[in-house]
Every structure is written in C-alpha cells, then in structure tokens.
C-alpha cells in the first residue's frame, strides 16, 4: 500500500462524525427538555422550578406526590417504551431487510393481544366472570404476564421457524404473517365468546396507554432495555455488514444466522415487555427508525443509538399531547402515535418517491 495523502478523506469523515455526535447531543438535550415538560404538564401544572426542586429532594408534599407517584413513572415508562419499540424496529428492519419491519411485523402485537384476551376471557381476569378458573381479578398481573408470555411464545415460534427453514429475511416475514393471522383469529374467537365486560376489558387493554405505568414496570423495563441496547450497539458493526447481504457478511466473519436469531429474540423481548405493560402502541417501531435514518444516514451504530433517543422523544411527545390536547381527558397514547405516525410515514414515502428511489 503506497503512502499517500489521505487527509482529504480523513477530514471529511471526521466532519461527518462530528455532525453525528452533535446530532446525538442535541437530541439528548431535547429529551431532557421534554422530560421536564412532561413532568410539569398535566391536570395540576407545576413550574420547571417546582419540578427541579422536587427532583433534588425539596418541594411541598403535594408536588412530591404528583411527581413521584404519578408523573415520573409515566414519563420514564414513555421514555423506555419509546426507546424499546424504536430500537427493536430499527434492528428488525435490518435483520429482515425490509423497510416495513417493526416488532409487530413478526406477530408480536397480535400475540400479546391474544395473551391479554386469553387472560381476560379464559382466566377471568376481567373480574367476576370466568369460564374455568373462577375469578382471577385479584391478580392484576395475570393479564400482563399472559400478554408477555404469548409475546415470548411468538418470538420462540419465529426463531423455531427460522432454525427449521433458515433465518432468511423471507422466512422471518412469512413466519410473522402466519403468526399474526393465527393470533388475530384466536383473539377474534375469544372476543366472540366473551361477555360484554370481558370484551370491553380486551379492547381497553389493546389501547396503548401510559396511564398503566408504575415504578415496578419501569424498573423491569429498564432492566431489560439497557442490556438489550448494549447488545445492539456492540453488534452494530455486524448489522452494517448484514446490510451488505448475507454472503458478504459471512465472508467478513459474521455468523449470519446466529446474529439474526439473537437480534430477533432480543428485539422481541424489548417490544414484548413494553406491549405487555402498556398495550399496543403502533407506528413507533415502524416510523421512528425511518425518521432517524433520514436524519443521520444508514450507519447502524449511529442509527441504533439515535433510534433509542428518538423513540424516547417521540413517545414522550405523544404522551404529552395525549394528556394535554383535550385536557382534562387523557387519550391513550397509542391513538396519538397512530395519528401522528401515519401522516409522517406518508411524508417519508412522498419524499422517497420524489427522489425517485
């Protein structure tokens, strides 16, 4: 290799890295602003200084109650859920090499909804009525647990499929379609045989809603999310290689099938926890990774880190809107994400068509 003056490229690359770093720092800053805004806004308005005072251990009893018991768990849950759905969407789009990928493409939301409906209708968790097991209404966790377990079963079926027929993007997408259809028909059947109360419970569960946030849930979310993000970021360079095609990734030393399977498992786990706790929150996992790539380009390390932050920003913003737009009524955040997400996705498609790509 000859010695050459490569400073031209070096300077370009360092510039690009700087821009990416500034973008990440700016989005973290925006997240902080929204964090404070989210805590201060709501039926009892707190000023930024009230919030800051409470957070450093001061403030009056009422403010402390509002911040620690109501607002903070909700805000942190929105951050964790947005980050989890967005980063798992970004990863799944990469591993199934499909821009329409999201945690829900693999059948996860359908499976979780079925799990919740199963707990409510069959296990009688809606309260009062039960087919076989008497009332389980005294165990509020049973719906969440069942939703999570079925999310997990879905992920295991997907990976089983992939192990059986090869972990190609096509197999994963097809397995996702089969499972979605299967679980949806199961849920429909349960809804058909359910009582009015159960039906209302099932439908109410399906609305993704951050009002269900508690400190326990937030803690579990972060326990799952942080190692998952580390796993994704440490493997980001391998994901980059995967984008170049399976054969090239293999020739660069990536164990393609193993990486793809683990990525699906970890991404599903993140999304399953969020969905089991808060219901179905659509569009975050689909739209946010696209917006992120539009802003930062296609380097997976930058995309994954940025997706975490952008997902948190997106859901936090959606949650603030859901609490304030028709206050004092609080709309489930899932409705807001769908409202905002759909036109945003349309905008991205129009932009793509205009570019002719």
């Amino acid at each position, binding site marked *: 290799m000859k010695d050459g003056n490569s400073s031209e490229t070096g300077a370009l690359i360092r510039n690009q890295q700087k821009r990416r770093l500034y973008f990440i720092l700016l989005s973290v800053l925006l997240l902080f602003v929204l964090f404070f805004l989210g805590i201060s806004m709501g039926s009892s308005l707190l000023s930024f200084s009230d919030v800051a005072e409470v957070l450093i251990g001061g403030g009056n009893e009422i403010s402390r109650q509002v911040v620690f018991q109501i607002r903070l768990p909700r805000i942190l849950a929105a951050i964790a859920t947005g980050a989890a759905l967005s980063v798992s969407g970004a990863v799944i789009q990469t591993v199934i090499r499909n821009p329409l990928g999201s945690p829900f493409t693999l059948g996860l939301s359908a499976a979780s909804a079925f799990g919740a409906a199963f707990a409510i209708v069959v296990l009688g968790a809606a309260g009062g009525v039960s087919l076989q097991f008497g009332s389980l209404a005294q165990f509020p966790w049973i719906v969440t647990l069942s939703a999570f377990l079925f999310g997990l079963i879905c992920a295991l079926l997907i990976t089983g499929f992939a192990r059986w027929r090869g972990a190609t993007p096509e197999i994963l997408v097809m397995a996702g379609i089969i499972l979605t259809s299967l679980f949806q028909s199961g849920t429909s059947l349960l809804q058909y045989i359910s009582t009015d109360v159960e039906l209302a419970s099932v439908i109410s569960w399906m609305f993704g809603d951050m009002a269900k946030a508690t400190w326990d849930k937030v803690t579990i979310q972060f326990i799952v999310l942080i190692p998952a993000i580390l796993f994704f970021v440490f493997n980001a360079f391998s994901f980059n290689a995967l984008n170049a095609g399976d*054969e*090239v990734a293999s020739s660069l*030393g990536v164990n393609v099938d193993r990486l793809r399977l683990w990525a699906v498992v970890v991404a599903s786990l993140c999304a399953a926890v969020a969905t089991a706790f808060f219901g179905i929150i659509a569009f975050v996992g689909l739209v946010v990774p696209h917006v992120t790539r539009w802003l930062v*380009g296609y380097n997976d390390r930058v995309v994954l880190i940025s997706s975490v932050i952008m997902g948190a920003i997106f859901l936090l913003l959606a949650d603030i809107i859901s609490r304030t737009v028709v206050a004092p009524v609080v709309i489930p955040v899932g409705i807001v994400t769908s409202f905002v997400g759909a036109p945003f996705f349309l905008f991205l498609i129009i932009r793509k068509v205009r570019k002719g790509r």
Partner: protein
Amino acid sequence: MVIEVENVSFGYSDKKILHGLDCTFDGGEFYAVIGPNGSGKSTLIRLLNRLLIPDSGSIQLNGRSVKDFPRRFLAQHIGYVPQSGGSSDNATVFDTILLGRKPHIKWAPGKSDFQKTESIIHDFSLDHLALRLTGELSGGELQRVHIARALVQEPDVLILDEPTSSLDLSHQIDVMKMLKKVSTKGITVIVAIHDLNLALRYADQFLLLKEGRIIAMGDERVISEQNLQALYDVEVQKVDVEGQSYILPLLD
C-alpha cells in the same frame, strides 16, 4: 497460503454441481477459473471460504480443514467479492470499505481501522466519492469499492466472482490490472471469469471446469485450442500478436 481441494463434491437436492474435484491453489499466484455457464465456477470459489459446505471431500488451508477455522479467522485470511450486490445502496463508500475491517474488529472500528480505510480509499482514487452512497455509483466505481473492501481485510487470498462481467472494456482492463498488482504483492488471487483474453493477459494459472469436472489445470499452455473446444463446444483459434496470445472464436 496454500488451498488444497480434495475429492470435493457439491450439489443441491435435485442437481449435482461438482463431482469429486481435486486441485491446489498455491500462494501468491493469479488463478483464473474458466468454464461455461453452469460449469460450477462460482460454486467452487464459494466453497473455498466456506460460504458453501461440500457434500463430501475436504478443503484445506495450509493443511488444515476449513471446517476447523472460526468464520472470523477465515475472514482474516480470505477476501471475497461477489458477482452482484455486495453492498447496501444506502451506505456511504467509506462505511462500505470500512466493513472490510470487520474480521479484525471486536466491537467497533478503532483509529488504525479508520487509517487503513482512508489509505486504501486514497490508493483506489476514491477520495472524492468517500461520502457518496454506493447506490449512486457507476458499475466500475462500485467494483473498485468492493475490491477495496476485500483488500482492507488484509487477506492472503482474494476470491472474486466474475469481477469484470458488468463492466465496459476500459473498466474490465482496470480491474484486471488492479488484481495483477495485488497478486504481485504476494496475495493469491482467484477469479471466476468468462473473458478468455483478459484471463490470458493477466492470470498466471488456469483451471478449466466443465459440468463440475476439471478438464485441465496449469499455466498458459492449458488454454489450448483443443481444451477450449472441449470446454465450450465451439471452434477457436489461438493467435499470437506481439508475444501475447489471443483466443478467437471461429464463427460460421
């Protein structure tokens, strides 16, 4: 690095592609694998770095079976340029070439990986394209990017599947010159190629493959009129122009 192929067979459920091949690729030589479409060229070269696994027989690197090496180790020693695809349209040229450092990187690229990538980008005159997306490049530029990525892997062996097939004449010559230069630095180059004259001009060793069997292997002398007629079922004439041999098909 010496690659020995011993009694290797490979096939898909309904079709056998290779039948008990035996051959050796010595270090530092420039090999051209020649044969008609469907003769098993691509299959053979993809078996060498375990992108495919033989049904029977063995492939050895310096006396050890490729099966015994971790994927990462193979990638540190064998670079591969596929016939088509090979990069994400949305990745920049720099990021695409940097991927070649993957086998040497545990988690994330370090300073020396960036330096090596910058340096090869400069050597390949790609500086002005460093931040362009590969989807925006011409066929010739893209092929240079793919070869640069395989070389930044610092391999002992470079395998290419028809690297000239989608290029115009001048880019075909550029690529072959580039590969010749690579082989003079001691890196074994193995190309599957259709263009006999390019192969004759730049390669040192030739492997003639027909219907999954080796017809001949050796230096320029194996590119004889008889062997080529047996290979392609087309009459050809080998002519000499100023010390360089050329193959002319005899048309009706």
